[in-house]
């Protein structure tokens, strides 16, 4: 129980905890979600009942969850980490087998009318698990091979399970989250250098042998990689989404076409306009100014997470907050790169904006953990 190593001068109890919440974070998260409601209302052609209303309900539910998680002491959550991790892995296995038979789609589990994506939950429990591991581990052993292998395996197992769904986007995020937490825990740079060398070597050998008799992949696999990397080569097929998304963003100009005036979204040129591609509607209707404001809100959320993590003397807490921040950042960075045509299309929602319950609930749960760590930090 490493927490007891610190002298807990003062930990708020009861309703006093409300005063010690990280209020700026609460406000920022609500503000970003509000932008989401506005955009969903616009995309639905000025109707609450299509998406915006339900999104608000999910947010309300998530907010309750967030406050609940926040008010429970962080050491309780740390002690739950291993259990949460195991449960998540079991849920992943469950969708792998039951999901395919029971519901046709593998990614969801239907629980009481609520769709739960175990892979979303996994992102948070992986962060918790790794943070708890490094909290437990003697820092001197951090870089020893055997003690590096454990967190690597803890990351690889869920990654492989998610990849089998198949959900490439989430698998990559899991890998990167794990890597980020391992990195922050202080594992020697040499390991990362080694992994980077292996990846670069593999990629170059795959591509440099292309066209030669000893090429490593089949031709059709190369072609698939080509369209994945450059969808604009196929403007009516794979590239359609990305081209239309860029048209929407670009045509918004400096200040946008105005609320509810986006032609690309209103006339259905934008695919997935209320989920993964919601940012394009925002860009079309509010232009560069609107998009820039949203980026600032996102940036502020990350800044407040960083400040909270750096202030926290508890190793579990700071690693966990950083993990959640990295998770949050990866969501928006991958989504925005995809929408702006900087990265291939992978199914990653935009945090707090994209329509969908699972991602929203898990994110609020994660921010609940951040709040709990903030309230119960050692002083």
């Amino acid at each position, binding site marked *: 129980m*490493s927490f007891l*190593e610190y002298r807990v001068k003062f930990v708020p109890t009861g309703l006093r905890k409300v005063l010690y919440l990280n209020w700026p974070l609460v406000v920022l998260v609500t503000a970003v979600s509000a932008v989401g409601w506005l955009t969903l209302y616009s995309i639905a052609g000025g109707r609450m009942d299509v998406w915006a209303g339900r999104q608000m309900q999910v947010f309300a539910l998530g907010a309750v969850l967030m406050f609940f998680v926040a008010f429970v002491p962080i050491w309780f959550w740390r002690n739950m980490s291993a259990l949460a991790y195991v449960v998540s892995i079991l849920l992943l296995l469950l969708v792998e087998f039951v999901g395919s038979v029971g519901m046709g789609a593998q990614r969801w589990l239907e629980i009481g009318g609520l769709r739960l994506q175990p892979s979303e939950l996994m992102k948070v429990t992986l962060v918790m698990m790794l943070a708890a591991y490094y909290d437990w581990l*003697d*820092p*001197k052993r*951090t870089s020893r091979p055997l003690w590096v292998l454990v967190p690597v395996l803890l990351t690889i197992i869920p990654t492989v399970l998610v990849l089998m769904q198949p959900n490439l986007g989430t698998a990559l995020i899991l890998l990167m989250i794990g890597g*980020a937490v391992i*990195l*922050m*825990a*202080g594992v020697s740079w040499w390991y990362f250098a080694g992994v980077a060398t292996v990846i670069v070597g593999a990629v170059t050998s795959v591509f440099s042998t292309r066209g030669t008799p000893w090429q490593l992949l089949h031709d059709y696999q190369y072609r698939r990689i080509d369209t994945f990397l450059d969808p604009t080569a196929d403007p009516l097929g794979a590239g359609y989404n990305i081209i*239309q998304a*860029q*048209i*929407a*963003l*670009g*045509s*918004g*100009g*400096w200040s946008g076409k105005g609320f509810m005036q986006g*032609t*690309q979204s209103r*006339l*259905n*040129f934008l695919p997935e306009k209320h989920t993964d591609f919601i940012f394009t509607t925002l*860009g*079309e209707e509010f*232009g*560069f100014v609107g*998009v*820039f404001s949203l*980026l600032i809100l996102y*940036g502020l959320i*990350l800044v407040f997470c*960083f400040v909270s*993590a*750096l202030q926290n*003397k508890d*190793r579990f807490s*700071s*690693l966990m907050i*950083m993990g959640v921040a*990295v998770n949050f*950042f990866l969501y928006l*960075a991958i989504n*925005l*790169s995809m929408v*702006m*045509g*900087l990265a291939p299309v992978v199914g990653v929602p935009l945090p707090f904006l994209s329509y969908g319950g699972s991602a929203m609930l898990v994110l609020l749960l994660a921010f609940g953990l951040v709040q709990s760590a903030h309230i119960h930090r050692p002083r």
Partner: protein
Amino acid sequence: MRRSPKETEESARVVHRRALLLGGAMTAMFAVLGARMRYLSVEQADQFRLLAEENRISIRLIPPARGLIQDRNGKTIAGNEQNYRVVITREDAGDVDMVLAKLAHVIPLTADDLDRTIKEINRTSPFAPITVADRLTWEDLSKVALNAPSLPGVSPEVGLSRVYPRDTDFAHVVGYVGPVSEKDLEGIENPDPLLTIPKFQIGKIGAERWLEDHLRGKAGTKRIEVNAVGRVMRELERQEGVPGADIRLTIDADVQNFAQARLGEESAAAVVMDVRNGDLIAIASAPSFDPNLFVRGISHTDYNLLTENDHRPLANKAVQGVYPPGSTFKMITALAALKEGLITVDTTVRCPGHLEVGGRRFHCWKRAGHGGVNLERALAESCDVYFYDIAQRVGIDKIAEMGKAFGLGVRHDVPMSAIAEGIMPNKLWKQERQKQEWRIGDTINASIGQGYVLTSPLQLAVMTARIATGRAVTPRLVRMIDGKEVDSPEFAPLGIDGDAMRSIRSGMYAVMNAPRGTALSSRIADDALVWAGKTGTSQVRNITTAERARGVISNDQLPWERRDHALFVGYAPYENPRYAVAVVVEHGGGGSAAAAPLARDIILRALSDGLPPLTAYPASQRNRIESMLEKLPLRDAEGRPPAPSRA
């Protein structure tokens, strides 16, 4: 296990350092995203704005309403009717076969429709709408509109379609419209964008084709907003086109109807012309066909019926058909001789029934001969030897010159299809065309409108009008364009001596009214309408010496296609000419029996407001005429065909 504070602090420092490093990486990523966004929505904004507009706005042409074609009194000959149709666009339909299969459950579609649609869809660009079914009922159209959500790319449309209410009456004059074909586009340098509209209908033959520029009008445009699947969301801007000009022809629909009905099932043609201004009052050609069949897309069976018919319903015999004019040409031969001063009215030629020329014997139709005949008798009784004799003296070149002056062998400029020039031969013509010397026998044949001479009924009508007036009357078909009268020119005198013209006219008067005139039975009894004319019977076969010795086989004994053509030209009233008429009945037998009665009925119909008055006929014929007129299948005032119960 307790850790030293030093250790803890050291590990916390590592976390801080690495966290700041990650923070730096994230900031860099934010900078990249911001820069990309700036590139898209600030630097490239104009281009993307254009692309977004191109996405949503599409410009469509609005076809203008085609001008109406009316008769001289404003009765509709070619009009436009609302046409409900269903079109499909490949781009929006996705799986065309599936959508068509679904559509076939909603409205009745034949296998033919489907085949044709799929063929056309594969041929044209993916965004071009293809008509699947035409002329649907309002009910079917509503069904398609109701099922629109499950029929992507399919849309119901209302358009105008050409309709010919007086179907068979004007098939040859007005022709018909049809969809633009590749062939139509070939000859055009910068085609009107309208022509690129699929299924856009343009005039194919007849006045529809030759007056196309007036009738078509100018396309309008509309800018419309479409959504991603091409559905029209709203109209942003509309610029109306200019509808085509309405055109009034010189034809009188009622006279035309009467002429067409009177020709009946004969293979025949009749042209009525106003001698004062050249207005064509009727241009009938029988049998006819229904042009509406062609507009709707004629079936193979119907088309074969038309092409296999030996009476050639598709041919416009009035302007396109050429026939040896036979004895109707004799006025020209006589005028040539009169003009050259080789004969006078009183010159008498003895007709023994034949004439020996260059070792060949040319027969008169009357074997016994006419005895001594002057010009008037020669015309009235149609003595061939008289014209053989004078033609020998005047020569073919003078005759041909006279023929051309009276509009024979000349292409008259009327907006109709396949207008024949006919043949008015002379020595040079034979040299060039046949590579042979002109023989005297050719002149003999030509003198009575046989041999190389070929004329169309229209030319014969023009000739008759010029004889009646002594002026160079030219035919015209268009009376008004877009409400403005087309000027009718003052016709120049032909420059033929008045006495010569009068003697020809009195010869034609005698044809109808002299006791031995060939067309006495087709005279008009009404003093005010008394008329003049000339019969003609032209051979389509050679009569051999052997046959002549045995006795010429009469027309009744011959198969139809070897019988003589019956011709008649005439004008009325004699004193104050108003109309000229020319009638040709293919293989009809004698001109006096087969053509003259038709010509009389038709010209009387033109001269009166309703049916020909019985008082105009000789008393003995009235009963027969009355019952004949009663049985004619005429249209009512609105142009509706007679009820079939009459037959």
